[in-house]
């Protein structure tokens, strides 16, 4: 057999004899399996629409750069009688212009309260669910050319396909194409989980692209890659708050977001890492879920909850 027989075999170019000999060989079964299995692999999805739209932008810019035709420079004088009228007209035009710009640059903003979830539809039909005590805002006027949002808190995004879509938080920016993802921003903590599509997380100069099933937790500047279930939704949307190695103080703050309670502590190490989840609907259950794994005790008096260490007298 000549040296390229595997290539010939894949292409159905082996002679009958060669084919027989090859099928009889010990390695044939494995070669066949590799050849078949490999056809089922796929590269990450190609965002054709996105690239095509960008191309249109580049092409349009190129057309705009045509040389400017020089105007005839003969000066033009307005006739005197129109002067006062023109001045007023000019002022009105300017004022209209200002109010237009003003109205358009007004930020649209949504805020959810304690223990509340908010379903929102953005102008491009992207869907957002805000978790408790979170704020989302964007500039209405700029939306068309610049889908940019500011988020404080936590939200789940289901982004309609189209141009770039950016979520900015005080701790970093998340840039996406059509996709589904969750952003949790807390004091010193940024968590982004990707459920569908592709998400780019950026903090300072550092960037990371997430694919479905991947999540990243940035805790005080430390990046840790984590896993989520692909195609799932964040747990808080099914009324549960979940944490993966998160300082206890963030967990207790979350409790205050989800329930109308004041949480206090005595002798508790708030930097202890907590992994687990608690119910967002049943406070007693939630308190148990937090206190048992951390070996803390708690007392509850109406809206006041006090956590204390087991060994505290």
């Amino acid at each position, binding site marked *: 057999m000549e040296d390229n027989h595997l290539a010939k075999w894949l292409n159905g170019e082996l002679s009958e004899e060669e084919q027989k000999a090859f099928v009889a060989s010990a390695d044939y079964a494995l070669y066949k399996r590799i050849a078949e299995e490999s056809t089922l692999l796929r*590269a990450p999805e190609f965002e054709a629409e996105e690239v095509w739209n960008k191309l249109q932008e580049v092409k349009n810019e190129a057309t705009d750069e045509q040389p400017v035709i020089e105007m005839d420079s003969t000066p033009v004088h307005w006739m005197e009688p129109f002067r006062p009228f023109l001045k007023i007209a000019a002022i009105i035009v300017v004022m209209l212009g200002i109010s237009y710009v003003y109205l358009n640059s007004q930020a649209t903003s949504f805020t959810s309260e304690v223990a509340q979830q908010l379903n929102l539809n953005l102008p491009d039909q992207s869907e957002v669910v805000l978790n408790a005590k979170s704020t989302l805002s964007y500039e209405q006027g700029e939306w068309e050319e610049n889908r940019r949002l500011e988020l404080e808190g936590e939200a789940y995004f289901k982004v309609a396909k189209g141009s770039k879509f950016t979520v900015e938080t005080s701790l970093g920016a998340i840039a996406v194409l059509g996709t589904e993802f969750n952003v949790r921003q807390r004091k010193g903590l940024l968590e982004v989980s990707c459920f569908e599509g592709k998400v780019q997380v950026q903090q300072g100069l550092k960037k990371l692209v997430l694919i479905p099933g991947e999540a990243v937790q940035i805790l005080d500047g430390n990046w840790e890659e984590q896993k989520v279930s692909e195609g799932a939704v964040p747990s808080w949307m099914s009324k549960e708050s979940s944490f993966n190695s998160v300082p206890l103080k963030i967990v207790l703050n979350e409790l205050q977001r989800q329930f109308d309670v004041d949480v206090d502590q005595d002798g508790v190490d708030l930097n202890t890492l907590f992994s687990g989840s608690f119910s967002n609907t049943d406070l007693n259950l939630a308190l148990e879920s937090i206190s048992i794994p951390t070996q803390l005790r708690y007392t509850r008096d109406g809206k006041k909850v006090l956590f204390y260490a087991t060994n505290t007298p």
Partner: protein
Amino acid sequence: MDHVCEEQVYSQLFETHSKTIYNYIYYKFGNSEKAHDTVQEAFVRLWENCAKVQPEKARSFLYTVANNLYLNTLKAEKVRLKYADRHQKSMTHESPEYLMEHNQFQEKLKNALNALPENQRATFLLNRIDGKKYAEIAEMEGVSVKAIEKRMHLALKTLREQIEGI
């Protein structure tokens, strides 16, 4: 006469070739973002030169540009391939033992693919996943059909050895 500057011809070229160029660059370098950028840049160059490029030469023009773009800049990363959906579904009724063995094999195959030299990986996957003929891959890579056959042969041989060895 058809002309690349004409919107219809241009968009047709995009539809026909953009995904293959993307896959080609991805198979080589494993960076989806860069692969997107490369497609975009190649088509920008095509637009800028649309008056000079004959439609039948457009394909090799695109591949030449794409090749030149990454040649000096990109470094190979891990290629993250997924299995096509239909495959996953057909698997659901199999026994756990079969599934486990199957998953292990898929994992080994992915690892072995990652260990291949990028030229061999791109050639092999363009043929297996995208069904590209050796002649077409030869045109993309700017080498002879014989060279592509050699790569295919070596790729498959190496994959088999890797998988058996693990």
